[in-house]
């Protein structure tokens, strides 16, 4: 399934299914993108990153896809597990030099049902 919603988008999947979390970014000049996972009561944790000269990058059970034409980023989680339940954020770098900063998207709440 895909994430939908107006405020904090939510995605509910069954354990073992694949999850796709989507993100639209705003700055066509952004050259570095990161996905973070935030579990309840904790800080955001780095999952995977991708540079703008790539369109796909794979990690362990996760894949990030980048479509620069439409400024779209997605995170695919294979064989989703209950421990994957969290809020997922995409982030893009904006600015330049020492003014580089990460600008975060709205976040998507992923709930994995056993």
């Amino acid at each position: 399934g895909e994430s939908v919603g107006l405020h904090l988008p939510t995605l509910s999947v069954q354990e073992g299914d694949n999850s796709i979390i989507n993100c639209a970014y705003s700055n066509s000049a952004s050259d570095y993108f990161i996905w973070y996972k935030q579990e309840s009561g904790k800080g955001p944790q780095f999952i995977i990153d991708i540079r703008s000269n790539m369109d796909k990058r794979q990690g362990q059970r996760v894949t990030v896809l980048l479509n620069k034409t439409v400024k779209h980023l997605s995170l695919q989680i294979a064989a989703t597990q209950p421990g994957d339940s969290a809020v997922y954020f995409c982030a893009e770098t904006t600015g330049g030099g020492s003014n580089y900063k990460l600008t975060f998207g709205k976040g998507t709440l992923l709930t994995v049902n056993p």
Partner: protein
Amino acid sequence: DTAVSQTPKYLVTQMGNDKSIKCEQNLGHDTMYWYKQDSKKFLKIMFSYNNKELIINETVPNRFSPKSPDKAHLNLHINSLELGDSAVYFCASSQVAGATIYFGEGSWLTVV
């Protein structure tokens, strides 16, 4: 070993008070940040410091004053606390500006 550690984790205080949140990173990073997360989970940068020097100040009220005694520490002092300051404050660091940012566990501030 906690890479980015911040204290206190929870803070409940009255309007008008002054409070501080401390942050330390043991990663040897040059750049440190403060982010604010509101009740809708929106994460927004407040400040960034590079090697003790203020680089980014995202139009944060003057009541918020970061201080970096050395590049491993970035503390946040807040004067005259207001109800709207209630949020989770995250300290973070990166090797250099633009590199992957690593976050602390957050400080939950509640102003009553």
